[in-house]
């Protein structure tokens, strides 16, 4: 049936490639846009890390000045979190989630494009601060009143940070709304919540976390903005303001944020380990429930970043307890992953390598997290390199490794090609060694009393030796990432011949060609269990495999067709129509932020508000246009 339809020509939009990318509302393309943008940012922000590492390689270096160092450090942290880890996750939401739930697209394709463009423009706005010689320099959590007073942070640096983050926040909230609705409303028939792949579960939980965590950041950023622009007193102690309020607002957002970053990679691990062990995820309901528990608890632990602020012993003790509780569900995940591998038939393809390493590094980073949660220890560790070691283990070790596992795993669904295994193996080992060489010695310098965010240190501190090792490790780590690029270039030169199901996969994305056609599923599948595809292939004791059950038979291992994006549409399928409006609205929004930044400068001040107004105008008419445009191809231009 699909065969016949394929030969038809898709009517309508044949635009130039550029226009196609600018107006695309296809989740797969948006996913690819997200992916490459954040990979470029990973290299840039990693490059900043290398600059820091050169400066710190030995005592009393004069490579970066104090101010430049702070700018580099702040931009490294901010961009890694908001422009690398968040959007790289979003990339895989886009690439994998609709395919895994058997949907043809997300619930709001244009909103999806809007999320991407706002992310791109917002992050470009922030990067552009380097061009103006004033990058933000108050650390990624921009503690008030250093950040909120022009007395202590003159110049537009912190304005770039504040308003750039507002735009990125809007992008994240829009994306989270979209994926929440998509997952709740658009699952294939038969896919009850408990049959949903664990990755999709983690994305759902992440969306909820984003929705409940970001508003607090938004409010805090507004307060900093008001303090900076209109001399309000939110964080000004001279009028009774309390800078600690900002810390609460930030960490009420910031702590859930780290789980926003880590839960989806944990989901990837939960897909990769079973696939390459040929076993279902051990205790899947427990893994899912652990995710829910982590998410819930994560709202009640924020003050563990503030143990030294002077909240008093009672709050410290309570927050320590709630923080430690998170170790339990995380442990449940770790042990279930280990039990998944146990007794399996483990195939150490590159995704599996990264995923297993991530399990180990989660343990490594997690136990130091528990040490931080032990308040008295944190009195010594807080703001030292011990913390830097902790979070790079979880961030690089789990998040980046998890996302790299995802890259190798889903690359066929992005490009119809399999990345090279040999290069992948090199990439893995160099990354693994580099990660540990870089971040393990940070524990030592941390315990030896080296505070973070120091642009230099003297020889008498004795921190020099390990810092040199760290720097060497960082360069190995950086080099390793170049291998990924080489691998991609090499792979992309080969023909796109990846089969639909290269890994003997378990979930729905492997039932359709690599890369999938624009409409994803010619026929929306019916789901009979969590490992929907595996059950169809091999049965699971309750169900008969589709191969013998003719009622359930579907075209699997279907050969790829050339140019599937332009194939004919199966009957009854409507594709969302490309649209300029998301791009226009994001541009308007970013213009508003840029205008606000200008308003804070001396030279461009008078231009500020007119540009804000112009941006608002563009946003308003953009939204009108968005509203009037038919959302679906071929749809009558009916208006609502």
């Amino acid at each position, binding site marked *: 049936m699909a065969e016949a339809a394929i030969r038809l020509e898709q009517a309508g939009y044949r635009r130039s490639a550029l226009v196609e990318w600018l107006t695309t509302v296809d989740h797969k393309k948006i996913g690819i846009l997200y992916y490459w943008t954040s990979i470029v940012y990973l290299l840039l922000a990693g490059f900043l890390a290398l600059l820091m590492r050169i400066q710190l390689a030995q005592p009393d270096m004069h490579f970066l000045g104090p101010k430049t160092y702070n700018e580099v450090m702040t931009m490294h942290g901010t961009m890694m979190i908001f422009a690398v880890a968040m959007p790289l996750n979003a990339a895989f939401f886009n690439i994998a989630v609709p395919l895994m739930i058997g949907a043809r697209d997300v619930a709001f394709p244009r909103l999806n494009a809007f999320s991407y463009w706002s992310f791109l423009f917002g992050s470009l706005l922030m990067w552009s601060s380097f061009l103006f010689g004033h990058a933000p320099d108050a650390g990624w959590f921009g503690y008030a009143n250093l950040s909120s007073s022009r007395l202590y942070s003159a110049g537009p640096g912190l304005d770039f940070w504040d308003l750039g983050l507002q735009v990125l926040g809007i992008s994240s909230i829009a994306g989270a709304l979209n994926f929440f609705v998509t997952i709740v409303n658009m699952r294939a028939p038969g896919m009850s919540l408990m049959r949903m792949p664990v990755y999709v579960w983690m994305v759902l939980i992440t969306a909820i976390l984003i929705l409940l965590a970001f508003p607090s950041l938004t409010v805090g950023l507004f307060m900093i903005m008001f303090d900076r622009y209109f001399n309000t007193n939110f964080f000004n102690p001279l009028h009774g303001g309390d800078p600690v309020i900002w810390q609460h607002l930030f960490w009420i957002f910031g702590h859930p944020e780290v789980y926003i970053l880590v839960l989806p990679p944990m989901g990837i691990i939960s897909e990769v380990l079973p696939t390459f062990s040929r076993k279902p995820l051990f205790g899947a309901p427990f893994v899912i429930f652990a995710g829910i528990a982590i998410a819930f608890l994560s709202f009640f632990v924020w003050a563990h970043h503030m143990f030294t602020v002077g909240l*008093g012993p009672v709050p410290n003790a309570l927050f320590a307890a709630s923080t430690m509780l998170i170790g339990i569900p995380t442990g449940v995940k770790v042990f279930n992953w280990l039990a998944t591998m146990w007794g399996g038939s483990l195939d150490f393809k590159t995704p599996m390598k990264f995923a297993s390493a991530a399990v180990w590094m989660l343990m490594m980073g997690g136990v130091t997290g528990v040490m931080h949660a032990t308040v008295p220890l944190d009195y010594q560790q807080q703001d030292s390199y011990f913390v830097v070691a902790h979070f790079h283990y979880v961030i690089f070790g789990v998040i980046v490794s998890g996302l790299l596992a995802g890259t190798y795993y889903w690359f066929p669904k992005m490009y119809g090609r399999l990345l090279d295994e040999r290069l992948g193996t090199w990439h893995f080992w160099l990354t693994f060694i580099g990660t540990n060489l870089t971040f393990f010695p940070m524990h030592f310098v941390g315990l030896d009393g080296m505070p973070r965010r120091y642009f230099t240190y003297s020889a008498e501190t004795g921190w020099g030796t390990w810092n040199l090792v760290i720097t060497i490790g960082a360069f190995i780590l950086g080099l390793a990432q170049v291998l990924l690029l080489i691998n991609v270039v090499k792979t992309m030169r080969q023909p796109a011949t990846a089969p639909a199901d290269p890994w003997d996969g378990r979930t729905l994305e492997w039932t359709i060609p690599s890369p999938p056609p624009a409409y994803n599923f010619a026929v929306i599948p019916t789901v009979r269990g969590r490992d929907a595809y595996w059950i169809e292939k091999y049965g699971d004791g309750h169900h008969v495999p589709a191969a013998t059950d003719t009622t359930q038979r579907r075209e699997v291992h279907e050969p790829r067709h050339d140019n599937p994006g332009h194939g004919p549409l199966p009957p009854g399928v409507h594709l969302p129509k490309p649209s300029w409006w998301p791009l226009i609205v994001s541009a308007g929004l970013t213009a508003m932020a840029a205008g606000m930044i200008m308003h804070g400068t001396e030279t461009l001040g008078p231009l500020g508000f007119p540009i804000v107004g112009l941006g608002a105008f563009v946003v308003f008419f953009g939204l009108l246009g968005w509203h009037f445009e038919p959302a679906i191809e071929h749809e009558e231009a009916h208006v609502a």
Partner: protein
Amino acid sequence: MHEHPTAHAQPGPATWVRVLVLLTIATILEVLTYVFESTLGVLTAPILMIFAAVKFVLVVAYYMHLKFDNRILTGIFAWGMLIAISIFAAMAAIYHIYGQPLLTP
């Protein structure tokens, strides 16, 4: 999952008016509570909160149709409220029960 339209009387203008009347009464009582603040003493705050909660629930349940609508929506909104309220209760404790006094500028 799909909830069938329930046997509830289809709400219409009559319901809306009734709710409006209740809302008005609650508002009047609220303002009266404020007026008699000194007599009510420590009771003022809880009484005010109860009236506000009643108004809140009336609008959400009737005007926003939650009472007649899919339960999932109630769940979503209730969780949002619950997290918000508990975080801010914790904040209130940090600031007003365990908090050290701030310095007077």
